[in-house]
């Protein structure tokens, strides 16, 4: 592997990793606050990518302009799913929670297949093949934008959680449900808000992915799995863990894809998953024994 290919693969990996980070932050945020694994997570990315597709095809809207649309629509859907379904099983056996969310995942895939068709679709924007060359490294414009935007959203969300009142309330609930309630936080509202934010930023990842990307209604499954690997790697519920874990998995996949071929790179993620489960189940940022 020449240095040029080495760095090119690194860049490609980081670009993919940015998307993974965004999806995983959504998942880890929901887990951190509600202690529930959103098994339907990838489907919200699929929704995002289809929203971008239809906004582009029907209205001629540039995919990046449909980001607010995706945030509002998917955020509302997320809030409804949380209030109507997830909220009701928060104290149930984990088995019931997971079956419910697997049901939501199946239902969303079915609805998308019903309305959008099972056949693959691709949208083509005018600038999809344009490339920037920097230090001899090639960066496709849509992928560069996707990376920068995902970094921007991640940092913005981090700031929101760190410095705003609402963000502090979310962190308070994730630290202790009871204590947050005692100091007057409306815990159920925070739950709904967190689920909405978590699903909405996942939809943003879908929109960022949309230019020149093949989409099918069941594509979310793969992203769910990647997000699972990332959040376990970066410790469940840990924001920075999900962010860094996403970039790490993106880079590892890029190198694995280089050596193994694109389709089998998920095996590399699986190997990482098994290794974490065997040697450090609490993840990179977890305390031993948690």
């Amino acid at each position, binding site marked *: 592997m020449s240095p040029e290919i080495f760095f090119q693969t690194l860049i490609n990996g980081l670009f993919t990793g940015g998307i993974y980070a965004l999806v995983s932050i959504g998942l880890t945020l929901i887990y951190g606050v509600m202690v529930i694994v959103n098994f339907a997570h990838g489907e919200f990315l699929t929704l995002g990518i289809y929203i971008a597709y239809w906004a582009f095809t029907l209205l001629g809207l540039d995919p990046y302009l449909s980001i607010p649309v995706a945030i509002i629509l998917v955020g509302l859907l997320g809030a409804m799913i949380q209030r109507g379904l997830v909220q009701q099983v928060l104290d149930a056996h984990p088995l019931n929670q997971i079956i419910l969310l697997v*049901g939501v995942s199946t239902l969303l*895939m*079915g609805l998308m297949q*019903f309305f959008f068709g099972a056949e693959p679709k691709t949208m083509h924007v005018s600038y999809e093949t344009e490339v920037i060359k920097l230090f001899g490294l090639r960066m496709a414009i849509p992928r560069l934008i996707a990376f920068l935007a995902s970094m921007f959203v991640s940092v913005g969300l981090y700031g929101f959680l760190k410095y705003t009142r609402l963000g502090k309330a979310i962190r308070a609930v994730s630290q202790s449900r009871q204590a947050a309630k005692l100091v007057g936080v409306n815990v159920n509202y925070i739950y709904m808000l967190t689920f909405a934010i978590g699903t909405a930023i996942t939809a943003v990842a879908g929109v960022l992915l949309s230019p020149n990307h093949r989409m099918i209604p069941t594509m979310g499954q*793969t992203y769910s*799995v990647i997000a699972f690997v990332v959040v376990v790697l970066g410790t469940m519920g840990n924001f920075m863990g999900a962010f860094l874990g996403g970039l790490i998995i993106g880079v590892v996949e890029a190198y694995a894809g280089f050596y193994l071929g694109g389709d089998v790179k998920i095996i590399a993620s699986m190997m990482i998953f098994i290794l974490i489960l*065997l040697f450090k189940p609490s993840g990179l940022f977890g305390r031993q024994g948690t």
Partner: protein
Amino acid sequence: MTTVTSSRELPMYNRVVRRLFGSWDQTQLTFSFGLVLLMAISPLIIRSPYYIGVIILASLYAFIGISWNIVAGFTGQLLIAHIIFLGLGGYTTIVLLNNFGISPWFGILMGGVIAAIAGGIVALITLRYGLKLDYFALFTIALLVAMRTLFLKWEFVGGAVGMYLRLETPSVAKMIFASKLPYLYISLILLAAGVIIQYLIYRSKMGKYFIAIREDEAAAAALGVNTTLYKTLAVMIGTALAGVGGGFYVIYVTYIDPTGIYNLGVNAEIVMASPIIGGLGSLIGPLLGALVNKPIAEIIRANLAEARSGITLIVYGLFLIASIMFMPRGLAGLIHNVYDRLRTPTHQEEL
């Protein structure tokens, strides 16, 4: 046939009733065998091979449902992507038959063995450290995606095309029959065996440990139950049965391919729906659920799926959601309530 009107015969009648319906567990077992018997005599009335086919698959779904019920229902282990082991059993059976000429009668059993070994490995990797339930569920779903990728690339097992049973003249050794009836009786024997195995496990000490682990793993461990051992055992028993079911499934539907079997939607239909509709953790749940699930799946496939794809996924998604929201104990829970109501008056009379 004797009538039970004469007073002299009443004690005998009472004893039989008590033996068959004395407890809720007994009642479930009796009803299970009643349903198996009904399916066994159904060809007397139902002549159409199409409907016989539906009954065959319903009984197979019930058998597979039992295999998942032992892991998820009894032990509470979130082996969501159970269909992995169905696929392994299926592939084992068809590879042994096509590539080595080994009879499916043996191949199906080998499918169970291979699936149980794989299940044991998965259980040891994931359950060894007492990992949280969620992690186990995540791991199985990730494994499913990895298996699909692997099998799509693996030319020895047919790659993306999958493997087909060579159509040959009927032969008992190769489990190829001209009529559907032999398939029906093989699947019913499997189901009866599944019902008995499930009941014996439920009644055994091991079964009590399984349920203790489901209810409160930390408490079970504190009382001296070797939770890792019993969780691994539950997974291995469940995956062994799934492997056997997968072996017969492939022989019956005559093909297997990676996208068709390593698929969460198919998993929802074949593995999860029946026990959840019927009542996860109950003895009769998987059977009751399969008798509702399979006919509905057939109706969708025959009437609606042609019109628009995605309907199957929508229906199964709604099934899973509705079961958890409105009927967490399933159909068995409803029947249990009726059973309790029927029994209470007699108690009051005795008092």
